[in-house]
């Protein structure tokens, strides 16, 4: 067994993001968020919070926190890199499939973990628009954001 690192449960990209998660909120960091999205709950075993700063309708900066598994950590970390600099429109239409692809894949039963960060991002954008008192042009297109860990199906993920 020479090459055991390649035998890790998840892909090398997942591993990298799990070991070195990007854009997490540091312990004493002050982050003046323009929008905050929370999804999941500790009781479900996964909880996710995404904080965004918005400038010129683009994601100017982003921090996140999670109580979640390796896949949740890695996919949220990946999401955070992908979302930075995107317009709100683009960010809102990031999909779990795009994140999963960037990660080089996730095991089937871990697919839902990539949904969490993504949903939290949308919730943060919703929150931002609401705080701004602006109309939300995106929200009607998608199901409402709740913890659906156990009921998210591939079909639903395709739909998102």
């Amino acid at each position: 067994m020479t090459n055991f690192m390649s035998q890790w449960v998840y892909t090398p990209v997942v591993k990298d993001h799990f070991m070195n998660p990007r854009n997490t909120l540091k312990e004493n960091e002050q982050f003046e968020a323009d929008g905050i999205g929370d999804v999941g709950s500790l009781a479900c075993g996964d909880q996710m919070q995404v904080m965004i700063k918005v400038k010129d309708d683009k994601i100017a900066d982003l921090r996140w926190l999670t109580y979640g598994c390796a896949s949740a950590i890695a996919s949220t970390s990946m999401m955070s890199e992908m979302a930075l600099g995107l317009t709100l429109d683009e960010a809102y239409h990031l999909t779990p499939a795009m994140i999963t692809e960037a990660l080089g894949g996730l095991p089937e039963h871990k697919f839902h973990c990539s949904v969490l960060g993504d949903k939290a991002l949308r919730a943060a954008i919703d929150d931002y628009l609401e705080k701004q008192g602006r109309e939300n042009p995106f929200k009607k297109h998608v199901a409402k954001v709740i913890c659906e860990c156990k009921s998210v199906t591939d079909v639903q993920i395709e739909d998102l």
Partner: protein
Amino acid sequence: MEQHSIYLDNNATTAMHEDVIAAVHQANMLYGNASSMHMAGRQAALAIEESREALASLIDAEPSWIVFTSGASEANNTVFNIFKERIDLGSKRNRIITTTIEHPSIIETVKYMKQLGCKVDECPVDSTGLVDMEAMKNLLGDDVALVSVMLGNNETGTIQPVGEITELAHQVGAYVHTDATQAIGKIPVSMKELGVDYLSLSAHKFYGPKGIGALVVKTKAPYAPLVHGGHQEGGKRAGTYNTASIVGLGVAAKIALRDQPSECEKLWKLREMLRVGILERISNVVVNGNQEHCLPGTLDVSFPHAEGESILLYLDMEGIMVSTGSACASGSLEPSYVLLASGVDIELAHGSIRFSFGRYNTEEDVAYVLEKLPPIIKRLREMSTR
């Protein structure tokens, strides 16, 4: 490349003892079918009977009670199938009692039987995972065919008062089964003293091979095979004798009998070192299970605000191998049903880590874990939603 390899998942499975490996390797030459009358067959048969005796000595049973199976899962399924069949055939004793914290090979079998209309009651446990004896007494009655209570829990290590339960169950005329898989080799197990009618075990939990175990059945207890066919095991379990693995089980049984007292002491010491060390170094920690009636090498801990799988994988990166909840639940989103059944908060039930020691662990292993674990928990807690 890997500098450390510290295996603390001995409740899932153990590494084979070197004497077992050597014996299995040797026994691979005993290729004859042990049911055959010719020389090769008789040699194999002799080796099997020697193992049967060694196992009988280990658990204080009669050799003739032993039915070798492919492991404890099959043994547990066999016991429940015996009573399912009797109930199907119209037995008046048509209720089974088990507990909420059994191994999946019982939990899932019970689910399946209930779907088919069988009456099964799961006796609750207290907050330390001990069977609620009042509830048990209330559940017992003369319609009960079987009571099945595990001896030591695989996740928390909690040891049940199986002897006491057996007495009560026998008073109402029920048969008793105990899944002793986790107890063998760690604490003394006497089938005769416990008084149970059926006992399951698996060799790979005490440094024997995987894929071999036994159902031990008292002579007068009802029996029906799960695997029908040839006359092996006195017609109780068909399939060509797995000679080499049975030999391995026998050698493991001899070692377990010899070393159990010293192993027990050693495992407890390591476990306590780790428990105390964790409590000293990490705040807000919950140790699960009963701390008095506990398998010596098992330490199950919940770390609020740090998720189980992440802890496991960060530890793995440091060469420390543990498990979250029960190994069977790995990769799934389920919180530990064992902890939930003990009334542990759902969040704590999600993030438990089981450290389980074995004969190859050392105090240095504990020191290394105590060095690596606290920063991992700290890091995950910082990352966690607050």
